[in-house]
């Protein structure tokens, strides 16, 4: 079959089109016909089908995500909000910071190395697109059971991919998470966060304005990557002979991206672009329609000018290709010469493929024939919106009502065994087998990285201004109560910023869920968004952007609802940052916050396959007081560490092992509960003796419970009458990953 043009489409209204194979519903296809007043050409069909996919259009989540705008707290810090490639916040001194999380879950299951690598590549381009220099990455991850054979395939590949791509870009990896759970087998979560910094006046937006301005494509050549789905169109176009094979896997080239970053930054520095957009999901379809839609609407593109890696690509395929390491800029004609010169300097392929017009249609031609003629807003921003049915899962009440029946350690030998068991379990064990594969020093601005509570980077060497970021999610709690779970994750991330000495400022998120077509999953999602929006309002933190990943499920079984919450904070002087571990003996140890019997959803429950019970409730007022206390007591403390998964056991173990200085601790009440409960809102603090009184006074001012729990020093962690030699504890803690993954 020959080229399908708009002219042909107008005269062949009855031609049958494979919209269902492209994932469009019957009524969605009808809507496209109504918008265009005719059937779409095959190129238009390709564009609408990708842009109206769940991934690009947010059709199931949009009605819920609105709350982030509606409930948004007043914040002077927000410079660019939801809707752009990434949100931007003001961090003072004329600096703006942009950060965002994206998921690359499914591709990482298919081809772990390339899937994860291109996940990093994609989020870095989103940050670059805002006009910012990317300065660090983070990687919250979830896998199936640690000892499952498939995890042994997926995890090392994912780690190598994240390291391989991020290291080659020269971006320090400053944090992340690795959690294992049965529900992630077959659905690993590979979320990637990037943070970037720029001056206020350098912020760039995705808009094509100014008729006569040029549409410029630069970066890698376009190949057939990631267009498996569109091959139905290609096969029609090519007829019986069939197109060359199309890869379903995208392969990344970090070197090309590194050069693209430097080239783009030089272009930005000389103020040579009017608007810019990266090419990610849906490739050119997305970039052209979003740029046009962001401006006044008119754009003409000559598609045959796109430089190809594979000359056999059809126009439909070129529009949908997800080849990596490409950008699309809008450039004034008077600046194009300099633009091309900079690309030449960096050996970056660059082509003018079209121009902005004063019309309101996006028109794409192929060797002179019009193959696309659409109102761009209908492609990019006015896709279908669904209010999907939702229902609280039937099992939940019963699950919440369950009285926990977990074996608790009863005597000293059992306590000791429990500590070793917990700290050597894959979820709690030392992750340096992973993090040693990531460059954390590059750029010379990393103040904190793994295994600290949050990652921290300096953004100005002279004024010492810095930012801290933490990502957190507790899917076990979200499973028991998605509304509270979202708030708790937010609180934890904010707390992790404050323990390090930074003030929480803004929020990003990546919402990983099962199928939105399952009312129970949709309910989990809606409750999560409601919880996060309420929580952000209460804590005064704006949501600046994020990402939704649906369809993470195997058959009927969805993953645990996993809202990864990222909080960004500011620290005026990075030299005052607070590490998680003490490096001297004879400090006093205090616990801030109260411990209750919160074992539901805990790691100890997980180790005993207990999923039931009631998640703790989030007390955000209290969390905010705790944060105030942490920020005000900065100069009094020597070290402090958040209490979260694994309870006090994990906090104390991590503190003593980090610098190899032990501690003697005395805990009141039931020792097993004190050690294993995961009550939120707690922090362990180490202070010099003479600073203890002022700290206690501040705590009482902020109405935060403070308990003296012990002293630092020695070569063991001794809790009441249970003594663990640091070497023994270390062996348990550090042995697990090398044993599992070599």
């Amino acid at each position: 079959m020959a080229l399908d043009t708009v002219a042909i489409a107008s005269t062949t209204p009855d031609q049958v089109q494979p919209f269902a194979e492209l994932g469009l519903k019957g009524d969605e296809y009808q809507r496209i016909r109504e918008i265009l007043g005719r059937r779409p050409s095959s190129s238009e069909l390709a564009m609408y089908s990708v842009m109206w996919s769940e991934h690009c259009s947010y059709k199931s989540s949009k009605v819920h995500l609105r709350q982030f705008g509606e409930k948004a707290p007043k914040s002077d810090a927000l410079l660019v909000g939801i809707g752009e490639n990434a949100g931007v916040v003001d961090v003072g001194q004329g600096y703006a910071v942009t950060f965002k999380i994206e998921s690359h879950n499914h591709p990482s299951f298919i081809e772990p190395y390339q899937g994860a690598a291109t996940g990093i590549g994609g989020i870095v381009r989103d940050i670059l697109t805002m006009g910012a220099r990317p300065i660090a990455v983070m990687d919250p991850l979830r896998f199936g059971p640690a000892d499952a054979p498939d995890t042994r395939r997926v995890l090392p590949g994912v780690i190598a991919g994240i390291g391989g791509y991020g290291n080659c870009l020269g971006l320090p990896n400053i944090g992340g998470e690795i959690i294992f759970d049965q529900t992630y087998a077959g659905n690993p979560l590979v979320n990637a966060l990037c943070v970037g910094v720029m001056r206020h006046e350098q912020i760039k937006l995705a808009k094509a304005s100014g008729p006569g301005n040029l549409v410029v494509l630069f970066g890698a050549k376009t190949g057939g990557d990631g267009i498996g789905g569109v091959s139905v169109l290609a096969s029609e176009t090519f007829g019986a002979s069939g197109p060359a094979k199309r890869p379903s896997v995208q392969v990344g080239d970090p070197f090309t991206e590194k050069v693209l970053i430097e080239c783009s930054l030089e272009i930005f520095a000389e103020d040579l672009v009017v608007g810019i957009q990266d090419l990610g999901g849906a490739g050119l379809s997305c970039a052209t329609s979003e740029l046009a839609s962001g401006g006044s609407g008119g754009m003409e593109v000559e598609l045959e000018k796109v430089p190809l890696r594979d000359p056999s690509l059809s126009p439909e395929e070129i529009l949908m290709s997800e080849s990596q390491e490409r950008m699309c800029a809008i450039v004034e004609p008077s600046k194009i010469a300099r633009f091309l010169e900079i690309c030449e300097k960096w050996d970056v392929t660059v082509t003018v493929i079209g121009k902005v017009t004063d019309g309101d249609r996006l028109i794409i031609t192929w060797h002179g024939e019009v193959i696309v003629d659409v109102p761009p807003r209908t492609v990019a921003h006015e896709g279908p919106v669904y209010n999907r049915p939702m229902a609280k899962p039937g099992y939940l009440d019963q699950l919440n009502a369950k009285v926990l029946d977990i074996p608790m350690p009863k005597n000293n030998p059992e306590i000791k065994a429990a500590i070793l068991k917990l700290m050597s379990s894959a979820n709690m064990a030392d992750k340096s087998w992973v993090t040693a594969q990531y460059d954390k020093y590059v750029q010379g601005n990393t103040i904190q990285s793994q295994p600290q509570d949050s990652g921290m980077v300096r953004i100005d060497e002279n004024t010492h201004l810095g930012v801290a970021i933490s990502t957190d999610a507790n899917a076990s709690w979200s499973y028991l109560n998605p509304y509270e779970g979202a708030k708790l994750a937010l609180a934890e991330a904010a707390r992790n910023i404050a323990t390090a000495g930074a003030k929480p400022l803004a929020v990003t998120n990546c919402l990983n869920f099962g199928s939105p077509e399952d009312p129970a999953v949709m309910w989990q999602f809606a409750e999560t968004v409601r919880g996060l929006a309420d929580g952000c309002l209460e804590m005064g933190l704006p949501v600046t952007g994020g990402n939704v990943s649906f369809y993470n499920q195997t058959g009927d079984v969805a993953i645990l609802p996993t809202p990864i919450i990222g909080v960004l904070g500011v620290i005026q002087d990075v030299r005052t940052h607070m590490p998680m571990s003490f490096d001297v003996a004879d400090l006093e140890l205090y616990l801030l916050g109260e411990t209750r019997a919160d074992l539901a959803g805990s790691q100890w429950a997980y180790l005993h396959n207990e999923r039931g019970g009631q998640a703790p409730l989030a007390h955000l007022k209290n969390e905010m007081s705790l944060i105030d206390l942490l920020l005000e007591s900065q100069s009094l403390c020597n070290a402090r560490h958040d209490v979260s998964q694994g309870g006090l056991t994990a906090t104390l173990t991590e503190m003593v092992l980090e610098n190899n200085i032990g501690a003697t601790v005395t805990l009141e009440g039931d020792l097993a509960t004190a050690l294993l409960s995961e009550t939120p809102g707690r922090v362990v603090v180490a202070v010099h003796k003479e600073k203890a009184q002022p700290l206690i006074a501040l705590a009482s001012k902020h109405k935060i419970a403070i308990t003296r729990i012990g002293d630092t020093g020695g070569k063991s962690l001794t809790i009441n009458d249970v003594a663990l030699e640091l070497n023994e504890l270390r062996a348990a803690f550090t042995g697990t990953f090398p044993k599992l993954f070599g």
Partner: protein
Amino acid sequence: MAKIVVDVMLKPEILDPQGQAVGAALPRLGFTFAQSVRQGKRFEIEVEGDPTPAQLAEISKAAETLLANPVIETFVVRVEK
């Protein structure tokens, strides 16, 4: 001792940044003969005596599961003297 060779190459439709880099470097050094360069892996496996067909089949199996990733790569097994 016989030598079994397994050649593993990226499928032609898959981006090969390594081959591209080499292809771009050659002309800079004055070598202009190459139309395209692809880079792959070569495994040399030594076995005792002449390899039996069963052994070769086993090696193909190993190539498929370990030496190559069939999602993005193809491979060829052959005996080299």
